[in-house]
């Protein structure tokens, strides 16, 4: 097999040219009523349109030696570049609105997010029912760009807007025996058509250990791309735990409960051998049915290596010192 380096150079040149050329045709095509942040960045749009066309070229690159292949992969790697709004809001796992990736975007219109009430209960001094505005008090939302790694081995980069959970939980004065926090999604088959079928044991429940919940990276998101959270992304209030698989980041939260025992969480209850309570992103621990050491970043053609704790090891590894992460997967 001969190694054709000119081919590689050509591929790189194509990508570079695509990324610096702003296509005027595309701007004309977009209807004016779309918010600027909804428009896919031109360079990504161009790259996507080139999909089939470049597939053939890239197929030819397969005959290159591994070192050169690595360079192609690296060129595609821009680690924290936000995934286009369109993809973040049209490719979702939210079984309450159907199990297909595009189902939530199609069906979540039936969810009524105003008014919204959050119930706080369990081991704390200030349980109660809070209107969402009161629950969030007057906390100033922050913008956080996080990687999101799904247990299905795909990933995105999401510019969230939200409030760190550790700025909210203390207001309810959790008791000393509050070791865990349990979160529950709305249960209403009228608004959430997916709940009319028993795909999962509704309502969806997730949980965190108290130190995980209080970790500065843990976010309660209310928006993305600087705008209100779309329903399919878990409006009006969702959890974001960037070092854990996506299913931990529970959507459309209506209840928060402080518990002494580890909460019984939905996927863990459903298939305990496949979905652990911790569900930390870990390339070393395979899902029983597929490997977790690689992932496909939405927008990429090829897969990249998955990072320990989804790249947040420096911040969160300390939470798990002394724990066997193969057992506590």
């Amino acid at each position, binding site marked *: 097999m001969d190694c054709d380096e000119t081919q590689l150079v050509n591929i790189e040149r194509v990508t570079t040219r695509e990324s610096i050329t702003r296509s005027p045709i595309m701007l004309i095509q977009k209807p004016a009523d779309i918010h600027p942040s909804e428009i896919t960045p031109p360079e990504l749009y161009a790259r996507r349109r080139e*999909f*089939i066309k470049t597939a053939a070229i890239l197929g030819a690159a397969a005959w290159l030696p591994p070192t050169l292949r690595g360079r192609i992969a690296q060129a595609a790697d821009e680690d924290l570049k936000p995934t286009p709004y369109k*993809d973040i809001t049209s490719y979702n796992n939210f079984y309450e609105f159907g199990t297909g*990736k595009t189902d939530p975007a199609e069906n979540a219109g039936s969810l009524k997010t105003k008014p919204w009430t959050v119930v706080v209960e369990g081991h704390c001094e200030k349980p109660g029912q809070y209107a969402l505005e009161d629950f969030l008090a007057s906390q100033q939302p922050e913008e956080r760009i996080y990687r999101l790694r799904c247990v299905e081995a795909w990933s995105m980069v999401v510019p969230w807007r939200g409030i760190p959970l550790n700025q909210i939980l203390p207001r309810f004065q959790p008791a000393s025996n509050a070791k865990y926090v349990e979160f529950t999604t709305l249960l209403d088959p009228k608004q959430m058509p997916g709940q009319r079928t028993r795909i*999962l044991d509704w309502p969806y429940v997730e949980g965190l250990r108290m130190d995980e919940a209080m970790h500065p990276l843990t976010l309660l998101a209310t928006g993305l791309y600087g705008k209100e959270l779309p329903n399919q992304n878990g409006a009006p209030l969702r959890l974001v735990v960037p070092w854990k698989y996506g299913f931990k980041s529970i959507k459309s939260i209506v209840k928060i409960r402080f518990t002494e025992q580890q909460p019984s969480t939905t996927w863990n209850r459903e298939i305990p051998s496949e979905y652990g309570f911790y569900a930390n992103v870990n390339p070393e621990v395979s899902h029983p*049915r597929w*490997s977790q050491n690689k992932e496909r970043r939405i927008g990429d053609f090829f897969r990249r290596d998955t990072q320990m704790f989804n790249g947040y090891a420096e911040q969160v590894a300390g939470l798990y010192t002394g724990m066997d992460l193969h057992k506590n997967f």
Partner: protein
Amino acid sequence: MTSKQTRLLQRAGKPLVFSASLLPLAWLFWLGWNDQLGANPVETLTHRTGSWSLRFLLLTLAVTPVRRLTGWNGLQRFRRMLGLFAFFYVCLHFSVYLVFDHFFDGSAIIADIAKRPYITVGFAAFLLLVPLAATSTNRMIKRLGRNWQRLHRLVYVIGIFGVLHYLWLVKADIREPLLYAGILAGLLGYRLGWRYTHRS
């Protein structure tokens, strides 16, 4: 039907089925060209080519039962073409996996096949289809004689492996793979029943 119409149907039948069988692929190309493959185009290609492999496999397996039930013997001549299209879509399905999931990384693929039961059965189904496709020519049918039919009974195993491949990979919503399993069970069950009643 007049004999003229019958002749026309006979002559047009194969080109028609052939063109129709290429429509799923044409559709994928159209979607790709217009950036309509969704946020995860590789996944879309994998799923669509996989589904069509399974559908063509089931269509192939449906030819004999439908022919017997309806008495429309003309159907028989489409069976080979449908079977080869099942193989064609499986090849596309496997190519997407080979290129975009593993980029020709042999050791990763071997590890996948060894460790992941759904990949093991899927790959086995693909491998088992190779000799069937290779022996689908008239010459091979003649050359293999009775053994041809014995060899091609592998398609039952391939069908079961194909459905298992799908069933074992879904996370929680098994409704669609169960639909395929049900159709396959019906097609295989019909054969068992027919064999039983026509034994003597």
